[in-house]
């Protein structure tokens, strides 16, 4: 290697190193700033559910419950829709519709979270309250629908999260479906398969990547903050009811961070941030590994 090239490599490498350092610094700072809480509560932090900053009791179970519950519900709603869109755009729709549809779904992802939240407060929540009030009393006795019809709560949060997750999952699923060799579909059709059966074969072929796409959506849902904060009701409780106001990890940080009056309170909130960081990191790494292994198992376009 000639020396000017080495100088070039080192100087732009420094910027790349800065990127790497930022990620390491995030992990380090979060761990450092939550040390007080990590030391004092240990694992009990995640096992107890009393959140009382005044008396210095910090149990984060309701937040992790709320985060997981809302994200799983959102996935249940979003996954079929997102896959339907991906299949429609990549396999079914006329060519001239493709670009506008891709643009519209991308727009769905581009709308700021705060705008979804504003819309959630003034449009979605009243609508959800209407649905809840209209629900027959016999159903209301079920634990899933118990509690007063407030409008704000888990159901509204899951709906809004689902809307926000759909574009991410469908975009990745579309990319994954694109990598399925044409011969797979042709073979299915040659055997007399209907359209559904041929597409099912393609989806089965791409299953690893599609699971990756769904997990990527899960990662997005876990960390989503503003829209959820504005509609979930912000009440720390572990409840099964879809109508109950609950709380998420991101929401409690957003709401209480500036109010954290003492060092322990602040470090408890940072610890929630640290765990959110670790969980999303794991989910994203796993989903990327799945998508990547899908891309690798293909015999490099030899089939085409």
């Amino acid at each position, binding site marked *: 290697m000639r020396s000017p*090239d080495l100088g070039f490599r080192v100087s732009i490498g420094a910027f790349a190193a800065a990127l790497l350092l*930022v*990620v390491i610094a*995030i992990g380090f700072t979060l761990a450092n700033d939550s040390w007080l809480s990590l030391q004092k509560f240990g694992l009990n932090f995640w096992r107890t559910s009393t959140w009382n900053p005044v008396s210095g009791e910090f149990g984060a179970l309701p937040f992790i419950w709320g985060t997981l519950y809302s994200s799983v519900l959102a996935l249940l709603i979003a996954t079929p829709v997102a896959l339907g*869109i991906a299949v429609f755009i990549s396999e*079914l729709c006329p060519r001239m519709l493709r670009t506008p549809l891709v643009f519209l779904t991308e*727009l769905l992802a581009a709308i*700021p979270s705060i705008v979804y939240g504003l819309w959630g407060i003034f449009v979605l929540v009243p609508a959800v309250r209407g649905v809840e009030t209209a629900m027959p009393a016999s159903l209301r006795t079920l634990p899933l629908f118990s509690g007063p019809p407030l409008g704000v709560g888990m159901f509204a949060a899951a709906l809004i999260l689902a809307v926000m997750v759909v574009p991410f999952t469908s975009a990745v699923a579309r990319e994954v479906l694109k990598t399925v060799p044409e011969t797979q579909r042709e073979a299915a059709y040659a055997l007399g398969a*209907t359209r559904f059966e041929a597409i099912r074969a393609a989806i089965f072929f791409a299953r690893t990547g599609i699971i990756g796409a769904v997990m990527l959506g899960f990662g997005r849902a876990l960390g989503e*903050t503003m829209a959820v904060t504005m509609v979930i009701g912000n009440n720390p409780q572990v409840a099964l009811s879809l109508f109950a106001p609950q709380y998420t990890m991101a929401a409690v940080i957003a709401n209480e961070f500036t109010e954290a009056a003492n060092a322990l309170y602040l470090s408890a909130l940072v610890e929630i941030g640290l765990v959110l960081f670790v969980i999303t990191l794991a989910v994203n790494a796993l989903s990327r590994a799945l998508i990547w292994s899908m891309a690798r198992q293909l015999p490099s376009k030899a089939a085409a």
Partner: protein
Amino acid sequence: MRTAAPRKVLSALFVAACGLSVILALIPLAFVLFFVVSQGIQSLNLDFFLHNPRPVGEPGGGMANAIVGTLMLTGLAAAMAVPIGIFSGVYLSEYRGSRFASAVRFAADTLNGVPSIVIGVFAYGVAVLPLRHFSTLAGGLALGIMMIPIIARTTEELLLLVPHALREGALALGATRARAVFSVLVPAALPGIITGVVLALARIAGETAPLLFTSFNNRFFSTSLTQPISSITVQVFTYAISPYEDWHRQAWAGALVLVSIVLICSVAARVATARVARIRTQ
């Protein structure tokens, strides 16, 4: 052929379900856009752009300070993220195979998936705690960190699209690698890179969570880097959760401004990429 009928029906149902899911996803989009435009347009006037917030009940308040705040925050973020992002992107495409590049690429993808609120907590730890108060700088840092991976990965992808012959031509003329990259490859990919930067700007201009406890909020007009500063998003949040009708209207107007920024940037980016693609295929 009795058995064929149910299979065909099933297939038709499946196709219908896929079409339905597209409609299902476009309904909320239409609803959100409809409400933002119809509600926002009523309170969007010149006052909104020229005046600072006023107390409840006093008419004529606006978000002038928040608009300037958002411009400053995104400007700071870009000043930090554009050099780091572009040079990292160049490194990723130039030294693709190296182990260090793989680590950096993994870091960029990781950073891209980190929830924005967590980046806010980080910026609080490194920029607010040491200075002991909220500041524009801390907010700009948080937004800048969010921009870096987007720009880095876009730059990398676009540089890889530049035809190999251009690089070989430059090297054959005796250019150093740095010369080949900065005089030939980067200029060839520049329209795309600028598009990527614009899209990243549009995305962070709509961020609220990382600003809540870094740049915080400010009721007054400020351009100080070391003081708290208002931003459109945080102002919309404050107004949205307030009990006042007046402020709700302001929130909708702010949302309309945000959505317009996003829309204009995405359409501009679309047009630009379409044009680049056309030139390339010629």
